[in-house]
């Protein structure tokens, strides 16, 4: 896989944008700014997916992450963060010990990546070129994609082949994932209930609820939407 021309330009553009936005995500003082920078980082990574010819995954990334998960994040920030804005010059990072530990892990990872790139990668590249000189070139020539009407971009059949592969090799995990999502839906609804909602669902004894009410009188003012 070697990108060239405009592909290379967009690779560096979106790669550096992803890293820059990720840095700002971690360093922003306001959690909402963090969420917005995370969204731009995720979109840049989706563009990198497109450059790696995974258009379907890029679409899923934008729909699920940016459209679903990040909206959920923003809602929770607004629910939780009202009285907890990071004030003035208050520390946003943990104690120096944790920062030091993270720096140590970062250096370990950088060293490992450099080592791997310097030793293993040339061998991989050698193997790839050896394979590419053989029959793989012929299969790639057969798989040449039809051009779009503008003659600039290839019309990709990637989504089609991805769907076939998903149901051929991953149909059982696919079903298990649906159960996982169901469990997540039920679990998040259970976790986010208020005391009053719990009582109306009848898994809390009424006298226990009265005790809780004496301890925290503010829960009585919480509106109950569902009965």
């Amino acid at each position, binding site marked *: 896989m070697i990108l060239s021309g405009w592909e290379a330009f967009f690779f560096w553009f979106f790669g550096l944008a992803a890293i820059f936005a*990720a840095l700002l*995500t971690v360093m922003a003082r306001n959690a909402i700014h963090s969420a917005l920078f995370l969204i731009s980082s995720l979109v840049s990574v989706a563009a990198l997916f497109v450059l790696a010819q995974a258009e379907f995954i890029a679409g899923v990334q934008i729909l699920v992450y940016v459209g679903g998960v990040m909206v959920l994040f923003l809602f929770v920030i607004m*629910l939780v963060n009202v009285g907890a804005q990071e004030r003035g010059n208050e520390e946003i990072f943990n104690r120096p010990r944790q920062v030091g530990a993270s720096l140590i892990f970062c250096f370990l990872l950088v060293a490992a990546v450099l080592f791997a790139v310097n030793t293993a990668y040339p061998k991989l590249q050698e193997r790839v070129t050896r394979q590419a000189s053989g*029959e793989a070139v012929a299969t*790639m020539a057969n798989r040449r994609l039809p051009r779009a009407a503008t003659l600039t971009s290839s019309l990709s059949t990637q989504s089609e082949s991805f769907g076939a592969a998903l149901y051929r090799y991953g149909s059982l995990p696919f079903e298990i*994932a649906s159960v*996982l999502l169901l469990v997540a839906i039920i679990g998040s609804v259970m976790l986010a209930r208020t005391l009053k909602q719990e009582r109306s669902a009848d898994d809390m004894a009424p006298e226990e609820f009265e005790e809780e009410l004496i301890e925290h009188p503010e829960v009585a003012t919480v509106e109950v939407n569902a009965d």
Partner: protein
Amino acid sequence: MTILLSVFVLLFQETSNGRFAQMKHGVVNPDLSKFLVIAALLFIIGVAGVLTRRNIIVIFMSIELILNAANLNFIAFSRQLQETGSVNALAGQIFTVFVIVVAAAEAAIGLGIVIALYRNKETIWVDEIDLLKW
């Protein structure tokens, strides 16, 4: 001084296969390793965020960054295998979809926990949530 300079010139001489020319070629024509480098940087930033931030929601967002770095690796290797004509080259993309599913479930549950925690402890700073501390 002159020795150092000559070593420098030797290392970075402008020849077709000198180190500088190779570096320039790698930057102009990015390949698999550049994808891996960007994914590793995103992973590092995510780990740093998880370990250092105090806001529990920002910690969750850093976890999303880490998962995204893993996804980028999967996609890049899948692309590499597609070119070598491997049989199941799309396995990386399939795995990426499942990673996204698990990330969505994790975010839903995690944020539910955050809301329950905020209701009980009135805080989102992780250093104030020390119920399990000895």
